[in-house]
């Protein structure tokens, strides 16, 4: 059975097969034959070439979280609505000028109105979560095209807050 996961935006392909009384994993063309022992519903012990690993695993939607020794991994399945895809979109949109909420929280202040001109570093909107304020600043010189939120509104991660139209880019295109 083949699996594909995104880890930090990078794709990894892995296949698992049942060999002769053994599990055979093929990862990026490399064959690994781990000895597997299920310790609990959430923990599996793996022995690879005599080295011992205890992996804790928890699945939530398209995400699989794994902890081994001091490292923590978030494996994301490449589904259409997965956070991995949204994160890629988020990065692309930032260049286009869509400012999105970085975390779930409360909009406590909107510093701009539609039509305002902003310079790089100017405060656009302030989102609060867990008693800490997070100031969203303009990444470049722009005109505020759209304000999607108002103070007092709850927002979710990646929810669009503000849309900016870059001033510099327009000039370049013209």
């Amino acid at each position, binding site marked *: 059975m083949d699996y594909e996961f995104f880890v930090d935006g990078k794709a990894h392909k892995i296949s698992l097969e049942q060999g002769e009384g053994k599990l055979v994993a093929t990862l990026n063309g490399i064959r690994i034959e781990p000895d597997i022992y299920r310790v609990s519903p959430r923990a599996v012990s793996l022995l690879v070439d005599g080295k011992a690993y205890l992996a804790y695993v928890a699945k939530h939607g398209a995400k699989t979280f794994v902890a081994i020794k001091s490292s923590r991994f978030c494996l994301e399945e490449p589904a259409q609505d997965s956070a991995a895809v949204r994160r890629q979109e988020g990065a692309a949109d930032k260049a286009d000028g869509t400012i999105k909420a970085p*975390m779930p929280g409360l909009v406590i202040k909107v510093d701009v109105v539609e039509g305002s001109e902003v310079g790089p570093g100017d*405060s656009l909107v302030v989102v609060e*979560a867990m008693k800490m304020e997070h100031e969203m600043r303009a990444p470049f010189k722009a005109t505020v095209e759209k304000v999607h939120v108002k103070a007092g509104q709850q927002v979710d991660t990646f929810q669009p807050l503000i849309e900016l139209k870059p001033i510099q880019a327009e000039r370049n295109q013209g």
Partner: protein
Amino acid sequence: MFRKILIANRGEIALRVIRACREMGIATVAVYSAVDRGAPHVHTADEAMFIGPPPPLESYLNIDAILSAAQNTGAEAIHPGYGFLAENPRFARRCEESGIAFIGPGSRALALVGDKVAARKAAAGIKAPLIPGMMAAGRSLREFEETVARIGYPALVKASGGGGGKGMHIVRSPKDLNSAIETSRREARSAFGDDSVYLEKCLEQPRHVEFQVLADQHGGMVHLFERECSIQRRYQKILEETPSVALDDDLRQRMGETAVAIMRATDYTNAGTVEFLLDNDRNFYFLEVNARIQVEHPITEMVLGIDLVKQQIRIAAGERLPFKQKDLKQRGHAIECRIYAEDPEQNFLPSPGKILLVEEPKGPEIRCDSGIYSGIEVTSYYDPILSKLIVRSEDRESARRRMISALNDYIILGIPTTIGFLADVVAHPEFAAGRTHTHFIGQHFSNWNQSSGTDNLLAIALIAGALACSQATGAGIDGRPRKKPTPWQTTGKWTIGGT
């Protein structure tokens, strides 16, 4: 002694107080907001009372709701924990007026030391060294401008009623002054219900060293030595240790005596902490008094063998301190790491969400004060602290190694936490050498990312993840409809070394 105590807080500190009460034979009442029905303090206490909607102002800061919960359940005392109403003199006074004991300093001492500006004046009164800055809360922008012209940049805007780094902002140039004041006021109003702020000089690379004080209602007062809390981000402590490598016996004694003198000058009772900054030339400056049990109190408990929360309760009930200064000795070294729901790879952005799995570390002298469990939803309404990991050992180096080992064994899956980051901080050679200061994180860890280590742990993680997915879909690992159970169901078949 009280028969029933209401805990006006949530999270790990509510559980900490509930445990102390249980061991003392005191019944407990929890209070909870609409999002906290599933929080562990609700099902650990003997009784639980709903106090309002999720926003703190309508629940954990709602004095009327909390007092009526106490009256309806017959609680004789209220423990405020830290944060929320812990340092609110109006709340302490309302408790006193309602005939309910407030487990903390009296409302008068609280008004004096809880207000950082008033505390500075009290410290000046006994000639304790002070950080240059305002001696009264600032009103107009001009007052701030005049002070900063006198003391110079960088400066710090701080909330008079604040704590835990909330409402605190550094100002490096005149153009940032107004927005820093405005942000501080807003955060302070939201967190403490008081928007007065003031300004003081920001020292270069100081250490943060504080002294724990206990004072009974009969004039008995001792300090329980220092805690060094230099490892901070956003002026909020994330790692504390005791003893501090920066103190020798002489400096320790002088700072301890100054701490006690400041507390005496304010007629302080119960547990409190006097915070100092220590510069490179070993000069110390009074910073503020924290008029509450502190997040980092367990490291003092670990090296002194004294339960501070029980002492708080006994003092509030009118008992005398059972020890004198000469009876107290530091034993070994303790370190605490604060585990937050924050993403250290994204500038410590809060990371609320569902915690899928929690596994706590085990071993000698490892203590985990936790407010979470597998399956809990961490909301964005409250402080992001999830738990505290505390270790003690014979000396600093063995405590440091014990902490690294314990952090590696501490599993929280589902949301980003600070665990991996803290493990790297504790393992850092500069930390190992004891060269700590309040800008340590900014200097050594400005763009931290989790390293995957020398082993190819990612490969192991992918195998474990794929195994979990094969189990979840019910398909065999070869993708065909399952005739034989997956390795997850027949682990015996795959076992070679397991028996």
